[in-house]
């Protein structure tokens, strides 16, 4: 099961820092973190011709923004529900926090693990250690790409495919539904968004072509850094956007 990871963790830290007023908790004064849309590290049209500028602009400035806005709204409501001891309202907010918090986390990770095809980072050579581990696990980079692509195309409905590093199992391909975030303790190496809004304006129903083309804009340098680092490192971009 996924948990809410550092968003709720952060919320918990915030509440313990801000709710102490004199000797007793003054929960109504609790401040909640406001999340903000992270800026893209490249221009909207920089991933063309593989992902169109129009898709990137809508995806970032509208879709991701909506997750951020709704996450902030839900967290505010959650504070109010805690303050008024309304447990029913708190529970009702959990799926909304998970969905929008997940949407924020997933997209923040996604933008960072993409890069213009012309950049040196777009080559798997930018990820020597990760590539070696991938070859060990899947036989070859092509074998891995095939397995990852099959996982992406097997998603029924909206969701994401991720390459993750697990403490015991090592590298693994996982797919998640809707905006469920990869925050169960694994390190996300890179993710590919399989919601229709990620490709439809350009590829229409031809999602196999999107899956084939997205390999041209994977940021292997970011992937290598996440592979070498911890989960906390991978969430740097998200924290920077608070």
């Amino acid at each position: 099961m996924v948990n809410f990871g550092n968003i709720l963790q952060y919320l918990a830290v915030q509440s313990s820092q801000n709710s102490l007023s004199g000797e007793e908790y003054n929960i109504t004064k609790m401040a909640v973190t406001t999340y903000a849309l992270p800026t893209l590290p490249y221009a909207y049209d920089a991933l063309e011709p593989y992902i169109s500028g129009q898709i990137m602009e809508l995806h970032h400035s509208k879709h991701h923004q909506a997750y951020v806005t709704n996450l902030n709204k839900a967290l505010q409501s959650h504070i109010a529900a805690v303050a008024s001891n309304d447990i029913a309202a708190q529970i009702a907010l959990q799926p909304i926090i998970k969905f929008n918090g997940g949407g924020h986390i997933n997209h923040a990770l996604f933008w960072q693990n993409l890069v213009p095809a012309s950049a040196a980072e777009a080559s798997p050579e930018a990820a020597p250690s990760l590539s070696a581990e991938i070859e060990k696990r899947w036989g070859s980079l092509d074998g891995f790409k095939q397995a990852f692509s099959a996982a992406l195309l097997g998603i029924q409905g909206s969701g994401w495919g991720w390459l993750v590093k697990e403490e015991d199992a090592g590298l693994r391909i996982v797919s998640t539904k809707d905006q469920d975030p990869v925050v169960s303790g694994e390190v996300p190496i890179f993710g590919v968004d399989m919601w229709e809004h990620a490709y439809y304006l350009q590829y229409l129903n031809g999602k196999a072509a999107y899956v084939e083309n997205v390999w041209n804009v994977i940021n292997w340098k970011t992937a290598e850094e996440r592979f070498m680092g911890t989960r906390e490192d991978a969430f740097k971009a998200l924290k920077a956007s608070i």
Partner: protein
Amino acid sequence: MSSVLLRSAPALRGALRVSAAVKPAAMASTSFVRGKATLPDLSYDYGALEPHISGKIMELHHKKHHQTYVTGLNGALDTIAEAESKGDFTKAASVAPLLNFHGGGHLNHSLFWENLAPASREGGGEPAGVLKKAIDEDFGSFDAFRNQMNTSLAGIQGSGWAWLVRDKQSGTLQLVTRANQDPVTGSYVPLLGIDAWEHAYYLQYENRKAEYFEAIWNVINWKTVASRFDKA
């Protein structure tokens, strides 16, 4: 399994009439013949729902997306039939998610096309007669029902559908949502379905899905909904 999925709901019979492609001759020639699912024809042109749903959306949605579900359903049924003939029930069971997804996709879209109609013909307006009375009783008013349905649609996290159903147990009308292509089953009889997958609106409405949920009421075929209600 397949015949149950394809035949359980009376409201689906209309869709099945269109899509059943079993030839009597073929029926007679073998002891076991399974009907292949086929893509039903639309009863209106792709452009006929404009300006509310664009012709391009309708064409892709019907010819590509629905066709993929039909192909996937037949593939899943073939795999099950083959596994069954070999007594490989593990294999047969492993196809269940694909059968649900593609079978559901075929049923949902077959129902959807029929509960839409051009605004210049049966589309839009408000229900009448016993259906109107039932909606007023169970939702307060038509406007209240429409608002609730739009709230349900907007609340879907990811891909899915919202349905007006009749619950055979309670005898009342209800709103339900289903994830992805999960079909409406059990005691619920589907009366009206609205597709909330992004492919149903994105080319025209992009991220502004609330506008799509407003516009689609102009092309709801209440005649179809009323006739499903009568049979439910």
